């Protein structure tokens, strides 16, 4: 049964098992591989996408749950906050293995879209669901502050 929703700003109809997690529908049906599989139980954040502007874990969200809603993946990031986050990620050379970074960028962008000047505590609250086994956390934190500054400037 096809599921209709807005994907990266465009109407999308995915013909897949409605119980399939959004993660796999995005990756294997929509052909958007930027969103990663890390745990399958919303414990690591590698699969983070935006659903109606909220950062959510696509590995535990059934495709049917996004019907009629708006999904943005790393491939569809357009906001000034997203661009600032990605620029800061490059400036501070955040990624190591890079596998978790799509999810980190998605969570950081969602944070800045709601809170233009996050404190360290805000960053902890927004980002602690995103695991980075390379432990790039210090640079993620610094890059979020850098991105916030650049948007303000």
């Amino acid at each position, binding site marked *: 049964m096809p599921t209709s929703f807005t994907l990266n700003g465009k109407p999308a109809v995915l013909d897949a098992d409605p119980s399939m997690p959004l993660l796999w529908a995005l990756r294997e049906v929509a052909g958007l591989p930027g969103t990663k599989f890390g745990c399958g139980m919303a414990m690591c954040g590698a699969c983070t996408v935006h659903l109606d502007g909220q950062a959510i874990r696509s590995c535990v969200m059934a495709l049917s749950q996004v019907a009629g809603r708006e999904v943005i993946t790393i491939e569809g990031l357009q906001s000034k906050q997203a661009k600032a986050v990605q620029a800061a990620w490059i400036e501070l050379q955040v990624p190591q293995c890079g596998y978790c970074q799509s999810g980190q960028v998605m969570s950081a962008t969602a944070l800045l879209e709601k809170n233009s000047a996050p404190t360290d505590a805000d960053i902890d609250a927004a980002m602690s669901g995103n695991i980075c*086994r390379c432990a790039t956390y210090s640079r993620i934190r610094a890059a979020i502050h850098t991105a916030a500054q650049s948007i303000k400037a």
Partner: protein
Amino acid sequence: MKTHTASLASTRRDFLKSAGSASVMALTIGFEWAVSSRRAAGMAAAPASGALFSPNAFLRIGSDNSVTVIAKHVEMGQGAYTGIATVVAEELDADWANVRVESAPADAKRYANLVFGTLQGTGGSSAMANSWTQLREAGAKARAMLLAAAAKDWHVPAAELTVDKGVVHHVISKRQATYGSLVKTAATLTVPDSITLKDPKDFTLIGRKPPRVDVAAKTDGTAQFTLDVVFPGMLVALLKRPPLFGATVKSFDASAAGAVPGVVKVVQVPRGIAVIAKSFWAAKQGRDALQIEWDESQAEKRSSAALMDEYRQLAERPALPARKEGDAAKAIRDAAHKVSASYEFPYLAHAPMEPLDAVVKLGAGSCEIWAGDQFQTIDQANAARAAGLEPQQVSIHTLYAGGSFGRRANFGSDYIVEAVSIAKAFGADGTPIKLQWTREDDIHGGLYRPMYFHKLEAGLNQQGQLTGWRHVIVGQSIMAGGMFAAMIKDGIDPTSVEGAANIAYDIPNIAVDLSTAKTGVPVLWWRVVGSSHTVFAVEAFIDEVAHAAGADAFTFRRKLLEHHPRLKAVLELAADKAGWSSGPMAAGKGRGIAVAEAFNTYVAQVAEVSVGEGGSIKVDRVVCAVDCGIAINPDIIAAQMEGGIGFGLGAVRYGAITLKDGRIEQGNFNNYRVLRMNEMPKVEVHIMPSNEAPTGVGEPGVAPIGPAVANAVFAATGKRVRVLPFPDGARA
């Protein structure tokens, strides 16, 4: 800057683009590679051209000025691609903006890790150390040939030429030419036998911070991992493995699995039952529906608590000497003060963010593999055996690895062999099949950092001087039974005792003994290998000894390192930058120090902790000093120290794989906890200036953090942490 996406698609695009233009004329240092790679990737061979030339296998320069560096090491986060490219580009005087990196095929003749000998692989923090001279020469010889080409074209002496960012200048005649415009002539010239390398004072990239070649693609989601490999008609396989190590399939019923829409086939392979489907989700549902009866008669059924009991008993029995100087037993017996302690270390999973995965295309007489491959020629040989082919019939495309920490380098090539055996059981008909592990597969999958028990005793004389040191280590051997078993000499696996047998402290009587235990739990190296436990034991215990001697933890260590100037220097640097001399911290806070040598790199760390309500520990700040020889890229060195600290800190606080009657009790990040953002301390990294050859940075930063934090906890609370992980993860 061009970024490397190790993707078939982009390789094909680039190739087609170049094939469609005049830029096929290229100075190919490593032409053989270019041909075999394209052929291996199922593409047309490059057009043969007499102008192509192959003095070495690490570099290709295109007429479009592109500089392609061929990396024999996997990029798994440690920065190897950037480091490798930096060294080549430095000697070549290339424009960094034109440098890109491609992964090398499996070929021990050209791409062996010179530290490993004749094997191609990445590990032991050796990528830069073993490549340093090799790649400098590769870059310098290419530069000399390009200069010679300009000299020939312009009829001027090469000595009058200079190079700036890939452009050759003849100042006298005001002529200039890009490298790309010179490749046609350069390709006709002879490769110089010997070459003069740059004086380090002339380095313009090494020691600076050229941006990583992989960061842009890892920021916008375009970096390609094995997870992202897609081929038309590709199937996805999930494998159901035994619930106990050593169990085997007795019987299985695939009817329910086979009825799941999208499931194509269910096959038995040596390691279990595989469900092959059109999508991950179908394969997962199919695997969940499998009915399997296991034969557990030969399986390991003990609990880790029982194993540790056995280890404790083994520590009291005679063991094999790993180091013996003087008479430690007598020195301790005769000592004015005696100190003793034991330390316990759990099994640890590597848990890289990208669960293990491999794509295999197995046909008649050929096998192609795509993976974040860390052990190319070993994996090639094991894949060939599993496929019933010769190694040269197996080609490996090494992609970015989403972390590894040692996991992807294993003797049996477990995940690769599984994928090949599944493709074989499927029919070896050329259908591309992706084997995907889940996180639970990863946590249950074995090849853990071994569990260890350490018992230490020391003796101090009346003056508080350390006179005797006895260290007994009990645990499984990583090397036993594997292809490196020959490294075990007189019963001592060097990976069990490194960091302990080579203890640098100046002690007159030392005995380090090893008792090697056997269990059915498969084990493997884990980031920083032996030093992941030995350094904790040594550095926590020396702290206890210093305390017993009434000495300061820093000055006690420093006095014992007079004969180890590089270790002593990093110890002093870390202590200085951390403000150690300012004395004890305020109540509820504490500072701890630890120092380590691992893979010829010297690291010292000072950790500051504060104790909150209920004894909860927060690590506030870590000051790290590192001496890794010449700093090729200080920013990557800093990143590896930061990451190593976070990785090691997560492990000592939370990391434990435990067995209950043989079954692994953890399954995912909910109960195999790792460090998260809110637990990451502030980290400062100070790099010791050096003219020594570069050593590695991927692992050594992991070693001192555990004991530095444990020692800080003692300073803050008076309580020693001797059993890892920390009680309740965060309390003292």
